[in-house]
């Protein structure tokens, strides 16, 4: 168990390093310095000091803005992980985020409720809206055998166009070409709060994200529900024979996944931003898949992986302005990480084989004088041990 986790860590670090290396080569070909470009990424996220700052800005205000940006991704990637554990692939996270963000915006965002009531309501409504969409996808899969990837993409487009229609007919801000900004009282980020002369963005969602990470970890490690979801994900037929209600588990995992995506949506559209851009489906839902694969669908792994991926995403704007590179290089690097992560089972297999060979070789060196009769015994034991470890993982 531990050794498989270690192996995964090696593969994950390896895929990130290789992707960054390929990115560096591309940057080099374009005649720029990859080290300064990558340093710009850190500077853009407030993890390294910039040469100069505007009024009210500092490294720490950049960092606060980065955390604000990071928060939705944690929820989105957790959402992806919950579905993935149950063997489902939620590619509709962006659509669920948009639906939740839009419903919360029109119900609470434009109301004049005080902040103490409005903020929790925004989270609850976002959660419920996302959950409804997720459960629908799960239901279509369970009841009508519709591939969840196809149905969620259809729902993504339907949500995008319908919401864009309502924004453009009812809620459009003629200047920004986006929906009218929500009231500050409903916003989940304390935007541009002045502390000691600096303006910080303080996201409430980040605290929730930490709690959500722990809760999801608890559900998977310690509860019957989590065990059942994992069993369904590992082998649907076996789970069915073990008496687990597979259909219920599918709908439930998509509902939880949708609920997390809904919270991701409200922390994005009513937190980091205060408005919705019509006709745009954000890429967070897709990047979340990269984060989830890189983090091995483990809540703690996701927390770390999302931190990394979001540095690339958020820092790209600053890098593009400083180094003159197109900011799309960031999504190319994320794509490469995703590509390498997709092969992680294969690479882990190679590592495992190599470890076994090394172990066998070590045995051979230790006992050169031993007779042939007891050799199979000593060779047999580590082999079975390893196989058991593999089965558990």
């Amino acid at each position, binding site marked *: 168990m531990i050794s498989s986790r270690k192996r995964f860590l090696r593969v994950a670090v390896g895929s990130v390093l290789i992707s960054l290396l390929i990115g560096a080569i591309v940057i080099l070909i*374009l005649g720029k310095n990859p080290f300064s470009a990558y340093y710009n990424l850190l500077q853009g996220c407030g993890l390294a000091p910039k040469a100069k700052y505007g009024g009210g800005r500092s490294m720490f205000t950049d960092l606060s803005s980065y955390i604000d940006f990071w928060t939705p991704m944690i929820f989105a990637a957790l959402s992806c992980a919950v579905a993935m554990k149950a063997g489902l*692939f939620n*590619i509709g996270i962006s659509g669920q985020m948009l639906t939740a963000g839009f419903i919360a915006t029109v119900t609470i965002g434009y109301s004049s409720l005080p902040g103490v009531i409005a903020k929790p309501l925004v989270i609850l409504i976002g959660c419920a809206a996302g959950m409804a969409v997720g459960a629908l996808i799960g239901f*279509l899969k369970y009841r*009508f*055998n*519709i*591939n969840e*990837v*196809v*149905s969620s*993409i*259809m*729902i*993504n*487009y*339907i949500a995008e*166009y*319908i919401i*864009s*229609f309502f924004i*453009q*007919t009812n809620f459009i801000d003629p200047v920004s070409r986006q929906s009218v900004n929500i009231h500050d009282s409903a916003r989940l980020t304390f935007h541009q709060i002045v502390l000691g002369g600096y303006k910080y963005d303080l996201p409430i969602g980040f605290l929730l994200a930490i709690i959500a990470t722990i809760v999801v970890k608890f559900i998977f490690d310690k509860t019957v529900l989590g065990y059942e979801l994992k069993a369904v994900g590992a082998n649907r037929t076996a789970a069915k024979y073990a008496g687990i209600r597979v259909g219920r588990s599918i709908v439930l995992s998509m509902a939880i996944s949708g609920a997390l995506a809904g919270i991701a949506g409200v922390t994005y559209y009513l937190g980091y931003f205060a408005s919705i851009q019509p*006709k745009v489906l954000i890429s967070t839902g*897709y990047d979340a*898949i*990269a984060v989830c*694969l890189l983090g091995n669908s483990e809540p703690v792994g996701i927390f770390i992986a999302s931190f990394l991926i979001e540095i690339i995403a958020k820092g790209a704007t600053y890098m593009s302005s400083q180094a003159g590179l*197109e900011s*799309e*290089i960031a*999504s*190319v690097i*994320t*794509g*490469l990480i*995703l*590509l390498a992560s*997709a*092969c992680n*089972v*294969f690479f882990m297999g190679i590592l495992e084989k190599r470890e076994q060979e090394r172990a066998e070789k070590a045995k051979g060196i230790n006992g050169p004088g031993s007779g042939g009769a007891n050799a199979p015994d000593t060779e047999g034991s580590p082999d079975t041990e390893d196989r058991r470890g593999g089965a558990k993982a």
Partner: protein
Amino acid sequence: MISALNTIIIDGMSFALPLFIMAIGGIYSERSGITNLALEGLQGMGAFVGALTAYLLTLRLGANSQVPYYMAMLFAMIGGCVYAMLHAVLCIRFKANQVISGVVINILGMALTSFLTKTINKQAFGAPSDKFDLGVSARFTVPGISKIPVLGAFFTRIYPFEILIVIAAVIAWYFLYRTRFGLHLRACGDNPAAVDAAGGNVAKTRLVAVMVSGALSGLAGMCFAYSISAKFSNDIYMGYGYLAIAGYIFGNWELLPSLAACLIFGFARSAGSEIVLALGMPSAYGDLVMILPYVVTLLLLVFLSKKNQAPHALGEIYDKAKR
């Protein structure tokens, strides 16, 4: 009224046929046992390579030449084919989860093409832009037959690529259902072990099938670039790849029923925009019409998915050692 009906048919066909050829690609891949959610990325990559080819050739040969148009189609197929090999390698050699691999191909394709389009425009042509302008393809009308009421619309204002697609579709049908190779391919999707026992090469057949799906998707992407968008840009990723997937699922992984599905999508789309136009509704209502193909897809899947039978070994990694 007649003219509205004609428009619906003309626009519907020019949308349905590229969708159909992409669905054929998907059928090839999935009948060989490789789940292919990568159609979206493959058509985008194909369109990118084709559009770049056309752009470069037009600079050299001038705007009146027909060569760039056909070379774009050819290179779009090559581009899609080569990019599809990545999906094949991930699924066959690296034994990656085929659903994940497909999604990865889509995300990476979108990122790569938009990065390359911007970078090439800036570095090579010295003009910052996120697109390659192509213009809409010329059309032609078959004299005589096009005068027949209603049916004539199928021969009116045709894009030349529609002919290419029909030819490609007939060849694809012949290979899949009437040749040894097609039989092997279909067997790979249902019982790869049997193919192996009979001396066939499962990995090679699947590789070829995925490459065919890449080539056909690339062609489809180029057709969309020359008709609907009139350029190559990120607009190419409108989810048509997924519509094609829904098309062949609805068509139960068979060619002719899939054609029917694609025609339904095409006519739903053109009829919708014609209605908005006829009723003189403001442009925002166009957004509502855009959802029609997607809603139709979902509803059709609700009614038909239960009966459908996917290839038996679809999505399974074939491992000789595990026989």
